[in-house]
């Protein structure tokens, strides 16, 4: 009787360990595959509203620069059209650990050459220093519109996840494997171990569903401290989608486990 009780307690313990291991593994894979994935984040940060917001800002600021420099907006726009960098390329640079601000010498030279080309073509005298200063300002405007500034916390987060990803997934897998093996060893008749293992995975499935639902209800990550608002909205949406993915995974895992357990019950009868 005592042995039976001890085995029951051990079964519950291993179920918990399987669930914890699964959560650890899934959590690490999910965060790496979503918030720390270039492809995933590009989808949100290259959305129409962000591109439009960036475009509007660039147009407005170039009008200001044109007024400040007496060089027509179309000159800056022509230089801009020769460079295909946009928000997507800023996201790419962020994940490649390159400067995502899009402020660089090549861009300054591009603006400078276009301005000089226009002024030479129209026989307008100019001062090199002033044109260079204008090109620097144009590049700053472009960087402020399409690039990402102040990304130190983001890059360190991505670096941290990438560094610890294998650690968390390995730990999760190890917990699952050790627990599964232990459960198998607990039973002389191996088929009796299956419901216990399934129960562990079902716990994980239920936990995914509960975490996802609660996170959506309590709006986890809804108001990131990020400006401008369209960027904050995009980030909040990406987090919401992460929880939706978790919800789908949770439902799928739970359904599979319930169905498997149901089949086992059926076979027993």
């Amino acid at each position, binding site marked *: 009787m005592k042995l039976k009780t001890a085995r029951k307690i051990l079964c519950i313990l291993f179920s918990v360990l399987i*669930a914890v291991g699964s959560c650890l593994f899934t959590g690490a894979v999910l965060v790496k595959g979503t918030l720390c994935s270039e492809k995933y984040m590009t989808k949100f940060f290259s959305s129409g509203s962000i591109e439009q917001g960036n475009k509007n800002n660039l147009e407005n*600021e170039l009008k200001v620069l044109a007024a400040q420099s007496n060089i027509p907006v179309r000159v800056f726009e022509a230089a801009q059209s020769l460079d295909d960098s946009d928000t997507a390329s800023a996201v790419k640079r962020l994940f490649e650990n390159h400067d995502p601000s899009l402020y660089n010498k090549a861009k300054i030279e591009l603006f400078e050459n276009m301005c000089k080309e226009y002024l030479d073509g129209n026989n307008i005298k100019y001062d090199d*220093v002033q044109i260079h200063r204008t090109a620097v300002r144009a590049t700053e405007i472009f960087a402020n*519109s399409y*690039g990402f500034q102040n990304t130190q916390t983001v890059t360190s987060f991505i670096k941290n996840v990438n560094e610890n990803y294998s650690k968390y997934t390995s730990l999760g897998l190890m917990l699952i494997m050790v627990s599964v093996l232990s459960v198998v060893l607990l039973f002389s008749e191996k088929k009796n171990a299956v419901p216990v293992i399934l129960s562990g995975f*079902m716990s994980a499935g239920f*936990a995914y569903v509960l975490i996802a639902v609660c996170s959506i209800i309590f709006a986890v990550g809804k108001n990131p401290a990020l400006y401008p608002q369209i960027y904050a909205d995009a980030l909040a949406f990406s987090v919401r989608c992460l929880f939706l993915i978790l919800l789908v995974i949770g439902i799928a895992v739970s359904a599979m486990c319930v169905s498997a357990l149901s089949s086992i019950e059926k076979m027993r*009868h």
Partner: protein
Amino acid sequence: MSTDNRGLLMNRFTKLISGRNIIVPAVIAVVITAAFFAVLPIAGASFPFTGDTVVAAQHETKKVNSIYSHAVQSSDKEVKKSSLSKIKNDTVFGEISIDGDTKELIYNAESKNAVKRYNLSDNGVLVGEIGCSYIECYKSDSDALKSIRNGGIVKIDTSYGAYQYKVIKTAYAKNEFQLSALGEDIGRAVVLYTDGSSSPGIGESYYAVVCEMISGAKIVE
């Protein structure tokens, strides 16, 4: 489905949800969820965008307001500053005419709202007040400013009264410090300034027109 089959299915389902098969995983899931939300505030601190607001891009979105209606005339010789309602940033509150060229006067506007306007900086001195008000215009809008000479008249109509200022000097300032010194020692002054260079591009110096008030209601404390 026969009654027997339905009964059997119900029996299995009841067994499934009432037994250890469902109850234990559900309890474990609740515990894991509770642990997740307990750890979240601590783990969340390592997530970006949870502390001070990160400015990822500079998108200025302020709209222009207006409190100006044309031809406001004040017969008062003095107006108490406390009786004037505070002018908010990016608010058009008047217009400036120089040799027939008229442009709106905006208060402490962000860059895009200052295009084709005169922009009064927020240094606490209003037009008509003792001290010096600094009003900027961009190079492309500065033709009239650069053509006015000593003795010329600058008309400034505001939401609280009409003013006339006489140009007492024009000058170049190498930097903001020199620019800020131009209006000193003049009772009620306005310094209108723009980019100091005449060729295209952003210059380093400023061209300034220093004016002294000759008519209009004095703003007093």
